């Protein structure tokens, strides 16, 4: 649910296609479920693995590939927080601001990171390296305050730690 303006679509300016490896993975996904629709979530994640976000071209591609109407795909994308229909940075950083993490300073870390990298919710940093997103529960209260850098959980962290970790990112 990256944009709240439903009528706006974002283009990446080039056609989208799965790589051969991802196309094979897609075929494997289809064998997991009774119907094609059920494979939509993993398929959208697969697109994001390939190009980080879900431009209009990718939505059209998946729509044709899976024979699902575009609007159904957009419903799914807009429902879930971790699907992005706007361009994001190379590295995705989720900062937990749910109750436990907030009690340990999660919100302050998020605000501090935004300030340090001079950016906003989901907006990539100017070098295109990082997108920050505050999250509801990441399910790791024992690590509070915690954050997720790409696919790795980090915590407990303080603001200085967090900045150091993010500055190391490629």
């Amino acid at each position, binding site marked *: *649910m990256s944009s*709240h303006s*439903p*009528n706006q679509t974002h283009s990446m300016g080039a056609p989208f296609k799965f790589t051969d490896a991802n196309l094979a993975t897609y075929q494997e996904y289809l064998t997991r479920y009774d119907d094609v629709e059920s494979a939509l979530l993993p398929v959208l994640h697969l697109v994001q693995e390939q190009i980080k976000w879900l431009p209009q071209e990718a939505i059209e591609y998946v729509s044709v590939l899976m024979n699902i*109407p*575009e*609007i159904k795909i*957009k419903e799914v994308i807009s429902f879930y927080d971790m699907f992005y229909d706007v361009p994001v940075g190379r590295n995705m950083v989720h900062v937990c601001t749910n109750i436990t993490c907030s009690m340990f300073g999660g919100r302050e870390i998020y605000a501090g990171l935004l300030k340090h990298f001079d950016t906003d919710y989901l907006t990539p940093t100017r070098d295109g390296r990082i997108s920050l997103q505050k999250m509801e529960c990441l399910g790791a209260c024992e690590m509070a305050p915690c954050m997720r850098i790409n696919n790795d959980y980090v915590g407990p962290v303080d603001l200085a730690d967090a900045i150091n970790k993010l500055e190391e990112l490629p």
Partner: protein
Amino acid sequence: MTEKVKLTWNGKQIEAVKGSNLLQAALDNGQEVAHYCYHAGLSIAGVCRMCMVEQDGVPRPFPSCNATCGEGMVIRNDTPKIKAAVENTLQFHLLNHPLDCPVCDQAGECGLQDYYMKHGQYDSQMIDKKVHKEKVQDIGKNVMLDAERCILCSRCTRFTEEVTKTNELGILNRGDHAEITVNENLKNDYAQNLVDICPVGALTSKDFRFKQRVWFLEEVYTTCIGCETGCSVKVSQNKNGSYRVKPVFDETVNGHWMCDDGRSIYKHVSSPTRLQVASENMNGLFVPADESRVVELVTGKKANFILSTSLTNEEYARFFESIKGSKASVALYTLPTQGPEFDGILRRGDKNANLRGAQKAFEAAGFDHTSAGLDKVLNAISASDVAYVVVPEILYNEDHFNTLLKKIEKASTRIALTPGETLSSMKVFNYLLPVPSFLEKEGHIVNFQGTQRQLNAGLSYGETTKDISYYGKWVNV
């Protein structure tokens, strides 16, 4: 297959088909059940939670739209528990409602208003700011969307998914940010049905909005004459005019729906340019004329009648009776096919509303109704003849009609019998005479299935007493 079961609804015995929808069974038996998302023509969504019922032996209330009828079920929806459930549900539906009833077109036939009067009447407990959404959105095909009034019953998204299969609409985002959105503007030819099935004022008709308050309108139940399907419709009208056409459920012909073309069939009936009195062509301008002058003009001349296919069976019969014993020739002008023969839902390419009735009447009277017959009559017209043309009520293809008019120019006296507006192409006529429109006469037409369909008269905005048989009598003067 249709095994009947007996069940008890609020202590009253009702009968229903085994396995049929419980909510529909209750409605069919005259019981009141509040509901928004359930629609007999769509799949079950179970999202509005208004139709809750309690069953003996079942610990919790459940929505009746998602239940089926079984023998001996004991159902209640008048218990305090259910009343509280419905009231609380309604409170959530109205949480972010903008309360703009005074400027809302749905007012008077709105599900939110109706159920608020029955199940609501509380003061709002909402202390937070309401969520605002986009209000005046033109989503195409004469449909306007107001996202703030929407209660997310999903009837419209199910309609575009299941009935038209065009999938233009969806619900984007989540929670109180969820709203109906168009992926691309509506492109289906049944879009006005969305306005009908919307239980609130979220989807309104661009054609109808701000024209009339619904409580000032009366309904005429009649048949659409837009094509040979002959859908059951109701036309809303009052003394100032007709305002809209809505479909009426008819299992054998149109089910719940009708096409967008049929929505505009009312327009000529109360149009300000509708022909009201006999008019004479004065150098291209039609001015009211005395009927006796027309009678004088046609007396003793050979009459050629070209009838349209949108008249009733009774009119054809009366007409042929009226010209009996004269030498008048009669032909039938059929409208050309428009678009595909059948679009798979309701609309048909053959736009001749009562072709079958006309053919039968022609055969009974011994006239040729084929296009060859029409050509024969047209070719035989001589300068001293009178040519009467009954103008088709709904003209989709004016060019095609104009070619017909070209062919009658030979006749010195050309008279149009028209139930509608004066078109620019009518300048070829010497006289225009008014006849009743489909909304001003009782009668029957025969649709593509061969089924008799009833036309009913509503209020009249034009000449209603002089149908074509009145003018037909002139041949024997």
